């Protein structure tokens, strides 16, 4: 059995349906555990007080916004190279969730910045490049919606996604390359400057965000398949089976 057989929407649709509930429940449980650690177990920060607890949504949202964009660019590249329907649909399904996480990262960052930096917004490299990431997501979705021919829309949006991927390393390394108001990375592979309770709460919330993004994207791609493939035989069979 080859993994490539799941590149066919007819095969992927039922598999995605099963995975949606698994990852949806996983996200809910991990979110509850993460919030419990973040609000009950983790101590108050001696410098920032309670405001630091924004970290439990800000960092996972920022990480997911960057990761989802890279995954979206990879699916877009696959769509251009192999011309597979599923690849373009997966890229399209990821974009709204990535945009949501980018928006939450910017919003929570602004509300964390006000009590700690004294301002909601500064045009420093980290914040500006994250705002560009949000605009890239919005541009991707707008481009898809603006072109009537789905194949042309897929190609144009795929190109935008691939070109825009250059922004992700810029976001990540911006705090090293430029002198920014935003702090440097507190967590790097193999080392952390955070207390273990704070770190574990943040990591559990990040896992919850992963599971949520997978569940929501798979749910959305199923709708996209119904939209694009309606009228085909396999969709009729699926609808009959769901009604039975």
């Amino acid at each position, binding site marked *: 059995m080859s993994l490539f057989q799941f590149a*066919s929407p007819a095969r992927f649709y039922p598999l995605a349906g099963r995975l949606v509930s698994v990852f949806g429940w996983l996200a809910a449980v991990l979110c509850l555990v993460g919030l419990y650690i973040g609000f009950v177990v983790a101590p108050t920060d001696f410098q920032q007080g309670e405001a630091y607890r924004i970290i439990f*949504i800000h960092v996972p949202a920022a990480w997911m916004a960057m990761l989802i964009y890279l995954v979206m660019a990879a699916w877009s590249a696959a769509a251009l190279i192999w011309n597979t329907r599923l690849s373009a649909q997966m890229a399209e399904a990821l974009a709204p969730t990535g945009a949501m996480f980018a928006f939450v990262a910017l919003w929570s960052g602004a*509300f964390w910045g006000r009590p700690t930096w004294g301002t909601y917004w500064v045009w420093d490299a980290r914040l500006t490049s994250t705002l560009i990431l949000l605009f890239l997501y919005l541009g991707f979705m707008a481009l898809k919606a603006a072109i009537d021919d789905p194949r042309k829309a897929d190609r144009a949006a795929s190109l935008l996604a691939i070109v825009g991927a250059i922004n992700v390393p810029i976001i990540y390394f911006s705090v090293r390359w430029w002198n920014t108001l935003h702090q440097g990375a507190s967590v790097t592979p193999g080392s952390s400057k955070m207390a273990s309770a704070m770190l574990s709460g943040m990591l559990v919330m990040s896992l919850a965000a992963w599971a949520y993004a997978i569940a929501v994207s798979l749910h959305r791609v199923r*709708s996209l398949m119904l939209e694009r493939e309606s009228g*085909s*035989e396999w969709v009729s069979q699926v609808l009959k089976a769901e009604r039975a």
Partner: protein
Amino acid sequence: MSAHAFYLWASYGMFALAIAVELFLLRRRRALARQHALLLSQESPAPAARVTANQAPSQDQRVSSTLERTP
């Protein structure tokens, strides 16, 4: 908590709202897509399944498929 409560809850509140809006839109899109697909399947009981592999259909295939469904 009181000094920073506004900033903390404004962040978590927007996070919850963003997720609620996304889930609502997701359910609505799914319902509309299902409804649309159901209508099409009722209109054409035996549609021509021209594209069964994982390759995207060409523009010609889309046009001919649409024409076939047109009464």
